[in-house]
């Protein structure tokens, strides 16, 4: 819990508000994401930093970033003050596939399509195979951004590698440049949104706006991040495989526990996939040691 005390004000406040600081069991971001319970007029008891129990109106706590701000947000700038980062704990993954389906739902993709792949990996002949989910790594030295001829894919201040689907010419150079095969292409009109659905999508998520003949990929769900919420894949994982957070705050959470990023990487020997390529991914992995589940082959993919 001392990690939380050291975290930035926003996280601390949120923690105090819900009294977890005392109870010390629930995750910070998890609670923040449950804000639908709160209505104006409700009061919430909470522990102030100096140890007093106080009661405040729920509308005063967890102020959301107004939709207006988000919708007017510049696609090419990123969420101010953030540096998004993800940690994937391979020891916990059993290919449940919930991250994929949540991703498909969130991004209005067909069910069999998602921005996350779950790959069977085996490091050596005698080593046991394991499952490795791969979203976009949002590299700090992104090969895809380097090769784009029209600046349709670019690095944001919050670390996200974003795509402007109104700019993309569909040359697919970024797809061959990405060593992790993270990018997908809208080969046909099938993935185009129906106008009714398009209305629901917030502007910042235009990053995945399914335009035929253009490239798309995992976008780290920036509109969630802006509201201190976790991306849907993180929330959906039943095993807490994904940790998501802010490098500036040095905090990541998988919904169940909120931990310090640097400590987690240190304690569990975090690494980045194919570090030698020099792409500097923003997604870290924790090795598949002390597995929680025995490896089980996947069902054959539906054709």
């Amino acid at each position, binding site marked *: 819990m001392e990690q939380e005390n050291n975290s930035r004000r926003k996280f601390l406040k949120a923690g105090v508000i819900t009294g977890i600081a005392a109870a010390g069991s629930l995750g910070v971001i998890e609670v923040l994401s449950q804000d639908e319970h709160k209505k104006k007029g409700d009061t919430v008891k909470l522990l102030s930093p100096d140890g007093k129990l106080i009661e405040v109106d729920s509308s005063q706590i967890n102020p959301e970033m107004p939709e207006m701000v988000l919708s007017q947000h510049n696609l090419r700038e990123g969420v101010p003050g953030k540096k998004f980062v993800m940690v994937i704990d391979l020891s916990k993954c059993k290919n449940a596939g919930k991250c994929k389906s949540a991703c498909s739902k969130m991004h209005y993709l067909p069910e069999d399509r998602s921005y996350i*792949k*779950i*790959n*069977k*990996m085996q490091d050596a002949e005698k080593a046991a195979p394991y499952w*490795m989910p*791969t979203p976009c790594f949002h590299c700090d030295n992104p*090969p895809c951004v*380097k*090769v*784009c*001829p*029209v*600046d*349709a894919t670019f690095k944001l201040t919050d670390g996200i590698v974003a795509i402007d689907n109104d*700019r*993309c*010419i*569909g*040359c*697919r*150079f970024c*797809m*061959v*440049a990405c*060593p*992790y*095969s993270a*990018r*997908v*292409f*809208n*080969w*046909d*009109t*099938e993935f185009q949104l129906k106008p009714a659905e398009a209305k629901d999508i917030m502007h910042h998520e235009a990053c995945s706006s399914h335009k*035929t*003949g*253009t*490239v798309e990929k995992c976008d780290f769900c920036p509109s969630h991040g802006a509201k201190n919420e976790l991306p849907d894949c993180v929330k959906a994982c039943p095993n807490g495989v994904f940790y998501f957070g802010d490098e500036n705050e040095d905090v990541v959470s998988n919904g169940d526990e909120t931990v310090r990023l640097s400590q987690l990487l240190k304690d569990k020997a975090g690494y980045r996939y*194919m570090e030698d*390529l020099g792409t500097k991914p923003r997604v870290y992995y924790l090795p598949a040691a002390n597995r929680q589940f025995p490896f089980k082959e*996947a069902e054959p*993919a*539906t*054709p």
Partner: protein
Amino acid sequence: MEPVKIKLDQSNELFRDLMPKKFGVQGRLWVAFLLLVILIGAFAYYRQLKYGLVVTDMRDFTSWGIYISNFVFFVAISLVGSLVSAILKLTNIAWRTPLVRISEIIAVAGITFAALIIIVDMGRPERFWHLFVYGRIQSPILWDVIVITTYFVISLLLLYIPLLPDIAICRDTMPDSLKWRKKFYTLLALNWRGTKQQYSLINKCIQILAVLVIPLALGIHTVTSWLFATTYRTGWDSSNFGPYFVAGAFQAGCAGVIAVMYVLRNHYNIKKYITPMHFNNMAKLLVLLSLIYLYFNINEYLVPGYKMKTADSEHLHALFTGSYAPLFWSVQIFGMILPIIVLLFRKGRKPLPVFIVSLCVVVGAWFKRFLIVIPTLLHPFIPIQGVPESWHHYIPTWEEWAITSASLAGALLVITIFVRLFPVISIWEMEEEKEKINQLPKQTQVYGA
């Protein structure tokens, strides 16, 4: 040197033989055939525009297919313009004169369709202008756009400027009754009068362009190779790629010229000008270029094959012994070993065998580009899994074949129409050559022959 005087009547053999002639039945059938192929391709492209790139067999892993390999083929074949009109010119090889225009029109047709096929490959072709408005110079695609455009312009000039005196001949001999054609040639001839000053100007121009086009030719194909070599992919991540591509391009282009000149020779009355000597010499050149290409191939496959790094080995095994082995070995044998062996023998350097071998080389060159582009994409670092079975392979759809065939037919049509409209061998340069030989002292002439 005094400008050449060209007699414009039937007594002049050059004039009689080399002026463009109407197509016979065969010529018309050929044009009709090409138009049919282009029409089918246009229909396939209409379908692609309507339904999206889903009509191709390209998917998230094989995200580049035969459009891109065909593009590389076109760029490769277009390099021959610089080989014959520049390298052979600057090395003072006299027998090249009747081949210059043929190779230059191949270059122009090739580079034009390279540019067109790349637009066909784009997911959003209507946004092509983004390249010029939002272009970012660190992208190798931008380098390619710049260098291909420049090469296109220089190649067009290298075709057009030496053509001026011949266009003027067409203009001057065109009867007034054929109004439109007369106008066409008059417009293109740019008021050519054949003065000494004009001749010295175009000679200077040709000299400058010939020097300019060599670095550009190396440039276009090196940059094209960088589209692949600047990525991390196995099979592409190679510092050998630039020279490897350039060597392959010269070899394919040389074979391309041989094939075209054989066909022209048999359908036009130009056997006097394109002689067995030309086939003999071009065949020798093809042997040399094949040897150089073989050298780069050995570098490209033997070195990684010796180490067999994990990532490379899967890709190399697919080529050497796996699913791509039959194609790979056919291409290596028919496209590289066969010319080296057959053309070493004097009998092998007769027109017909040279033609057949050259066709093998050109077809091999097309499939060679296929083998460079596709197998690599099927072997990414994280193995392909959890996707529909069909995504593990790439078998081009009929639309892809139709569009690709149409582009090849289009290039051939450009060459065909050019041959119909203009003298395929430069009349004035041949006249100049003839005069040069006449002016030589007797002794030299004996040795020179």
